[in-house]
């Protein structure tokens, strides 16, 4: 079976770690959605184990792309061919799924963004600034407080007869407003629908400020699973909202497409993928404070069975660059400085 070649895309975010396998024929062969739970390294390894058990023995990974806030960590562990920021990855995935898409609304666990495309190219974007009020974690938290599973949140919101108004600017205000309304006796679906509307309002005022939102509009990211939010967007924008089939893993899908672009272009290029057995390898991370200068950078070290794989976090790059060139000799460097 020569067609068993796949491109792997990995999106390691704050809340979820997503893996996508893309076949050479541009078919999505497998998607995995795992909770990161603050342990990105273990989650990536867990994902690779699951992936290995699901694909055939003859399957081969011929290209790897990583994205998400832990894209560097993921790239080190997996051996990535492409490392890209989330915005480009999301835009690439959406425009490959539907080349006519002009707006992408993306709401993830800890951040939200809007991407404006024209003719398949990003022409503007924005990410949330200081405020994370309109993101998935806040919905998670509120669902937990009200004792309803997050999966049922949106469905309940759709049952609302008359959504109530909730202050959406800040999650602290929103929560206290919700509690007051609930103590007055408002029905749960009305409160949930009100929260959805408040979130959408906040998103459009904050992230979507001054953006030329035109259809077709894609809604992706984990929160797109929530039909309540989708409906609130449709009402606010007066346009249909399309939730693509793989809405939850679009970042990873984009990374896989980018890997395909890169590896596919140069056929002689061999992937740097470290192999499916990496689920079994022992990886460790540790950090230390460098005392070389007053900046006292927090340096992170990734170890594979005791040997250093990568380092980052230092401003001057002396630790990062020392990897692979023997160990860094702090002593001799200090000597040079004294002599200078």
């Amino acid at each position, binding site marked *: 079976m020569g067609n068993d070649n796949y491109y792997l895309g990995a999106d390691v975010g704050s809340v979820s770690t997503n893996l996508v396998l893309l076949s050479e024929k541009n078919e999505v062969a497998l998607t995995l959605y795992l909770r990161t739970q603050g342990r990105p390294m273990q989650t990536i390894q867990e994902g690779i184990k699951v992936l290995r058990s699901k694909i055939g023995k003859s399957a081969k990974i011929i290209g790897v792309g990583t994205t998400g*806030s832990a894209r560097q960590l993921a790239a080190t562990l997996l051996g990535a061919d492409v490392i*890209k*920021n*989330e*915005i*480009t990855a999301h835009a690439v995935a959406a425009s490959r799924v539907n080349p006519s898409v002009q707006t992408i609304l993306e709401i993830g666990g800890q951040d939200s963004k809007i991407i*404006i495309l*024209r*003719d398949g*190219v*990003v*022409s*503007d*974007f924005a*990410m949330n*600034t*200081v405020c994370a009020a309109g993101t998935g974690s806040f919905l998670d938290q509120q669902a937990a407080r009200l004792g309803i599973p997050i999966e049922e949140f949106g469905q309940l919101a759709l049952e609302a007869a008359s959504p109530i108004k909730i202050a959406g600017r800040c999650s602290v205000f929103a929560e206290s407003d919700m509690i007051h309304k609930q103590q007055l006796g408002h029905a749960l679906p009305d409160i949930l629908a009100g929260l959805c509307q408040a979130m959408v309002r906040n998103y459009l005022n904050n992230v979507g400020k*001054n*953006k*030329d939102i035109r259809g077709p509009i894609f809604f992706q990211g984990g929160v797109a699973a929530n039909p309540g939010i989708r409906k609130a967007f449709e009402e606010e924008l007066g346009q249909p909202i399309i939730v693509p089939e793989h809405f939850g893993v679009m970042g990873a899908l984009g990374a896989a497409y980018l890997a395909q672009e890169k590896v596919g272009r140069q056929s002689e290029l061999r992937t740097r993928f470290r192999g499916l057995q990496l689920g079994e390898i022992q990886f460790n991370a540790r950090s230390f404070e460098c005392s070389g*200068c*007053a*900046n*006292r950078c927090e340096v992170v070290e990734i170890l594979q069975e005791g040997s250093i794989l990568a380092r980052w976090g230092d*401003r001057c790059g002396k630790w990062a660059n020392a990897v692979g060139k023997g160990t860094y000799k702090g002593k001799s460097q200090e000597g040079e400085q004294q002599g*200078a």
Partner: protein
Amino acid sequence: MKIGFPRALFYYDYFPFWAGFFYHLGIEVETSPPTQRQIMEDGLKKTSDETCLPLKLLAGHIQALKDVDAIFLPRMVSMEENTYNCPKFLGIPESLLSAVPPEIPVLSAVINWRKGQRQVLKDLRILGMQLGKSGAEIHRAFLEGHEWQQHYQDSRGGEWDFEEKMREIEYVTRQTTKTRPQNFSVQLSENHQNCQKDLKITLIGHSYLVQECYANLNLLQRLREHAEVNLIQHVEREDVEAHLSGLRKKLFWSHAKQIYGAGNKFVEDPTVDGIIYLTCFGCGTDSMVQELLAQRVRKHHKPYMVITLDEHTGEAGLVTRLEAFLDMVERRKVREGYVSAYGECLDSHSNTL
């Protein structure tokens, strides 16, 4: 006598004047070291939560000045006719006295060009009396300072490197008592301003943010690795004035005026591929000027991004935004190269940036 000069806020625009002034008077000037973590942390502890990052950094730099006879904190009210500096400049030194170590005295002077040179000299003579200098000496020192400032401003533009220039000036100000170290040499940064770069990006923002490479997480250097970078600080005053038209009312803050005028010049420049506005959380003047510029940018369909700084030390957020912005500018540039048969850009119908 040795005067401590904090490397923050007014340092970035007016240090050459003060360096020349004190040099003429034979007073040694010691600047605080470049910002590092300890300076930032010390600054945060000694200022109110309401104030902006540059002022917090100033508080940190004040504390970093050791072994000096006095700390110099001028009240720079106005630098030219009909303009003022930001009110936070005007509150110095009183707003920062809590950051000054108790055993070190504070020297201050009012600079207010709004009332003309006569008033500036009069105010400087008050400082002169504290320093035991005559009125004539102060006048000559003023002229020397003026010359240094002029020289500094004339030297800007092109291959110019801020830090390098400042090192030169700082070196001279220390020379009054110290001997020249054997191996002293001004290092030319090799990796800045490479004119071969395809992309041309303008970085807009206050001098004390753009050149503050610790607080801005090395933004300028990062940008220069990918693009030719223009700064508004290098735009001549006449050029700034020429681009202020279209405003219904005059801008009376010096920095706001410079940012809007010079920013406008780059907005209208068709060779500029993208504009990044660097601001800090809670900046009053930026909140308005940023919006004014954004409106102008939209008219010219230019990629535009605002980066808001605060006490961040995690680079991930900045790096993601910067990468995505550069990706966008690059991809857009490639596409806009395809001019349609009708001779206009494909996206000219769009109002999007």
